[in-house]
């Protein structure tokens, strides 16, 4: 066989390897799809796992319809539903239950139920034959599983190996977060911020190692991320001390069970971490690639290109944080405004904390750019000097 020919075959083979799926990959995909199918089937038939009574709606009729106008002249429609549902678990499994439901067009805190919906109900037995009860909530586990499955499938189909790694790193992050909160609640007397600082170090090390492997650029990215996040947190803390938290409305914070000041700093810390990691890894990768391509590159040129890349991603990264924070407040802001709350009050109640989160995160992003640049060039040129 001539060497050229074997080379040609090798090329063909490597091409095939990159474009088509190997048998092992196909096997993994089929395995993944099977797992998802099993998860879906299980969540569709897991009624017996619940202690609460679950009933599936078999008939739902609207019996009454009323127009409603509230104090602020908002027009809405309120409907009453009579529902017949079949009990799916427990002592009365298989029997029918009669339920009532009121819902509105808005559906801010109520819900129209249709045939097929699974409901959690509490039973009230008032006669021997007919069961009745009240609706306590909707069973949503199968929907969440379906969306999670879809997410995993799409990420694998488009992202292939990298998609797989990002799912793994998401999963590890979720487990870590829950673990950290468990430690916090179990210890009782440590501050949440201290637990979160430890968690942040773990998050950063694990996520970045998974995303870009155990290389020098990853180490640089880890150090820069940690410096960037903590410095931005210090800045936010300093600003709050300096201004006496003027303009901060902790009243607008939701789900608070412990003093809000403590928890807010932890939230800011964790919230900006992802974006800061993203910036650090983007900059280190580009700087190292520039260096690999041209080992003779001057220190100044490397910094200049790095700065340009930094300027390019800065706007986009700050936007990501900004939108993911602000968007969550939209329903509440609408409710405030529709109830005749003044604009200024509504905005300061709902937006002040979110904007502080976004601004602190953005400061972290912008700070991380020069920090990462400086550290990567330090590492690169230290190495260069040694040679």
């Amino acid at each position, binding site marked *: 066989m001539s060497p050229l020919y074997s080379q040609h075959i090798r090329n063909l083979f490597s091409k095939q390897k990159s474009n088509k799926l190997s048998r092992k990959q196909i096997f993994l995909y089929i395995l993944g799809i099977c797992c998802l199918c099993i998860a879906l089937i299980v969540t569709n038939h897991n009624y017996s796992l619940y202690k609460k009574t679950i009933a599936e709606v078999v008939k739902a009729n609207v019996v009454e319809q009323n127009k409603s106008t509230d104090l602020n002249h908002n027009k809405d429609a309120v409907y009453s539903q009579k529902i017949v549902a079949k009990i799916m678990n427990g002592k009365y499994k298989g029997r029918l239950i009669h339920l009532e439901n009121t819902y509105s067009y808005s559906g801010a805190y109520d819900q129209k139920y249709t045939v097929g919906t699974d409901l959690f109900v509490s039973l009230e037995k008032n006669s021997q034959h007919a069961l009745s009860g009240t609706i306590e909530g909707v069973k949503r586990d199968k929907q969440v599983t*379906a969306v999670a499955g*879809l997410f995993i499938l799409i990420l694998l189909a488009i992202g292939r190996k990298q998609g797989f790694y990002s799912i793994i790193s998401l999963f590890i992050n979720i487990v870590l977060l829950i673990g950290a909160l468990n430690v916090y609640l179990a210890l009782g007397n440590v501050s949440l911020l201290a637990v979160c600082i430890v968690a942040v170090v773990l998050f950063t090390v694990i996520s970045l190692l998974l995303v870009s492997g155990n290389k020098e650029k990853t180490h640089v990215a880890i150090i820069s991320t940690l410096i960037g996040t903590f410095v931005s947190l210090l800045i936010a803390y300093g600003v709050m001390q300096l201004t006496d938290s003027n303009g901060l409305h902790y009243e607008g914070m939701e789900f608070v069970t412990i003093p809000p000041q403590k928890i807010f700093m932890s939230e800011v810390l964790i919230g900006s971490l*992802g974006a800061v990691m993203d910036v650090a890894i983007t900059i280190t990768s580009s700087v190292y690639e520039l260096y690999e391509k041209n080992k003779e590159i001057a220190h100044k040129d490397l910094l200049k290109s790095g700065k340009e890349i930094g300027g390019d991603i800065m706007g986009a990264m700050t936007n990501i944080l900004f939108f993911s924070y602000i*968007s969550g407040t939209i329903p509440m802001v609408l409710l405030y405004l529709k109830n005749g709350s003044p604009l200024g009050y509504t905005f300061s109640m709902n937006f002040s904390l979110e904007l*502080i989160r976004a601004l602190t995160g953005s400061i972290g992003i912008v700070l991380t750019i020069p920090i990462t640049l400086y550290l990567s060039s330090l590492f690169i040129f230290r190495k260069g000097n040694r040679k």
Partner: protein
Amino acid sequence: MNVLLLLALILFILMSIVGGKKGIRSFLALFLNFGVIFLTILFMLSIKNTIIVTLIACTIISCINLFYINKFNHKTLAAFVSTIITLAVLVFFIFIIEHHSMIQGFGEEQEEEINAFSLYVGIDFAKIAICTIIMGAIGAIIDISLSISSSMNELFVHDPSVTKKNLFNSGLKIGRDILGTTTNTLYFAFVGGYLTLIIWFKRLSYSFGDIINSKTFCAEVISILSGGIGVAIIIPITSWISASIFLQKREKGKQYKEIK
């Protein structure tokens, strides 16, 4: 002095030092974006079709973040077209998901906060839920599509005779490299905002079943996952559209030369 003002000032100074003129433009874009969200909310109060309002808002936001920060050229044009297509696909997806999982409005955990208000306000909160999810992901979607289209342009400039299929494949490859970090960014941003919720669940000793079926939790998880889906599907869409637009430009350039 107000916390917000001081932080904004610090951010402005940092952005102008680190990013120069582009940094200043990025900072102004943040304000413009906030203005767009503000107007969107005001429009949502009176216009029934809130999804259309959101889509228009997203189009304006894409214009600001692509054409204002980065100037109008074929890179940003490709990113813009891809963003709009992805949004349309995503709205459709989320509509179905929302319909089945019933995550609109407010959960039990928010009861204390909302019980002072009249809840029959005549806004369809199911649609608002869709808008919220879309708005939460738009930043990440724009970011990823611009990253892909500018890297593809870089490749195209270096190798102008590249075939469409190869260009498309390199687009996918670039996209895959940034997919992981972007989903991470979204995850941490959302989790950061809901740390209190998770602690609430733990404090009130919710069982696993309670958590996974609670409206607030499901809404949160579905937001993160839908954002992730959006970030993933924009990769092939941008790769294809950029490849088409860049090659079309090449064809046009050829014709122009021939005429000359």
